[in-house]
């Protein structure tokens, strides 16, 4: 009986300590804080000063996604650079791996703390571009850079190659022409990656 008695004494002690010091948290009234770099839903980042998304429609994220839940439509504008028509992420299919955030050379994707994403109909699980946009605050950028901290950077693209839209308004520093050309070339290169993953159409 002594083994059973020892076990019962342990649980009895816990009965009293849990009254004042419980181990559990009364979710959803109380929530535990999440760490920096928590992998929630990927979101598109827009630059705080200009309000434009940092995304340059290179579709590297779409080809990096292992399950192909990023859907993009792009077309080439008159000056030859790509423009983003549609950017959807299927929140119902996303596996929250963060490979898209790691792949983006323009710091345009981050992962936020959103994981309570249930909805009452399937259509709501498809997050279009407008719903995905979050501001490029210090906190969101910190999350993103922590997620990307171990990743090999794209060969020729400088990490701070802001999109041309920001230059046109005149609030960003001039981005060298070669950097943008190089980024577009790298994107073509990356598109040759097999499409078991994402879709990108022009």
């Amino acid at each position: 009986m002594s083994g059973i008695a020892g076990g019962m004494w342990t649980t009895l002690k816990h009965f009293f300590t849990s009254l004042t010091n419980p181990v559990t948290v009364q979710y959803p009234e109380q929530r535990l804080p999440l760490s920096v770099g928590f992998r929630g839903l990927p979101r598109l980042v827009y630059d705080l000063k200009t309000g434009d998304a940092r995304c340059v429609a290179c579709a590297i994220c779409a080809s990096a996604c292992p399950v192909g839940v990023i859907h993009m439509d792009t077309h080439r504008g008159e000056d030859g650079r790509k423009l983003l028509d549609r950017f959807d992420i299927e929140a119902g299919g996303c596996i929250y791996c963060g490979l898209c955030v790691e792949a983006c050379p323009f710091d345009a994707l981050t992962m936020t703390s959103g994981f309570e994403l249930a909805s009452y109909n399937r259509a709501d699980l498809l997050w279009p571009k407008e719903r995905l946009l979050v501001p490029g605050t210090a906190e969101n950028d910190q999350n993103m850079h922590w997620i990307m901290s171990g990743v090999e950077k794209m060969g020729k693209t400088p990490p701070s190659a802001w999109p041309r839209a920001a230059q046109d308004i005149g609030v960003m520093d001039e981005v060298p022409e070669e950097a943008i050309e190089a980024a577009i070339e790298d994107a073509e290169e990356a598109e040759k990656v097999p499409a078991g993953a994402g879709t990108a159409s022009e």
Partner: protein
Amino acid sequence: MALDVALGGTEEIAREDNLITINMGPQHPSTHGVFRLILTLDGETVVAARPVMGYLHRSVEKLSESRTYLQDVVFTDRLDYLAAMTTNLPYAMALEKLAGIEVPERAQYVRVIMCELQRIASHMVAIGTFAADVGTFFTPLLYTFRERERILDIFEMCCGARLTLTYIRYGGVSRDVPEDGVEAIQRFVEIMPDKIDEYERLLTNNEIFIARTRNVGILPPELAIAYSVTGPVLRASGIPYDIRRAEPYSIYDRFEFDIPVRYNGDAYDRYLIRVAEMRQSVRIIEQALRDLPSGEIKAKLPRLFRPARGSAYARTESPKGELGFYVQADGKVEPYRLHIRPPSFINLTALAPLLIGHKVADVVVILGSIDIVMGEVDR
């Protein structure tokens, strides 16, 4: 004749002998996943057993042939979903062997810490659910899960996720361990020995627990070797084989730890081995934290990993047994073939002979003591 019935023999034979064939079906709270066991019973005693696997088959090996090596890392998380770190590791090691990549020192130490933390977490689930199967309902399960939450919080600090980690990659690890992560691991290591004592106080000397698990499902050592059983199940049958000692990989040869062995081979011994392994893992983590160097956490690699033609097999000691990844590359960005040697699957082939002669209630205990995860059985 009993075997005929188990393999789907005619109903007349069953009625003549009074044998019943039932499904311990794929939906069952105690089969540790979607696992089907066709049992032929004489009253309550098992006369024949036939396992049917494949209900969780997701064709991971085929899917990985059309994805890049980096994208395949997410598949490895989802094989043994309760031990993602130790499943990421052999895949990374196979690729490093294939391409001759050298992993930096800090990354090696971080890998060992994470894998041992994962071993503790996996054994916590194993012991907790085993105790739940035996009939202690939820109490030991929630006690072990309380500490497992600490481990999952550590993982969340390091890689952003709790279960499907995608942390150990070829070349190193994906992100560095932050300062508060190291502190959390240190605190965890300090409290853990007392907590393991608490789990033992609940279970190890409990007369009812011993009555239900002692001499149940005895696996003789010759049978264990014949069925290629590995891991805690093998060591409970008296064979002191642990890949971390037999064929040390990563930097396990630098650490001092014991390999627990027991000689009875029953379910009780398998439980005791897992508890002892948790204690040894705490020892390894202490030593690794003490010696953790600073430096790079990933080798310098090209953006798109394209190894030359060749093949490599890497095997590690996962919490369930020997886990191996065989990768065949042919110079493209995706592997030509990826094959996984899952410990749970191989250990499960030894299940049928263990069950014969036991009662139905013991079937649940024996299955729980082998500790399977259907994600890696079916892939």
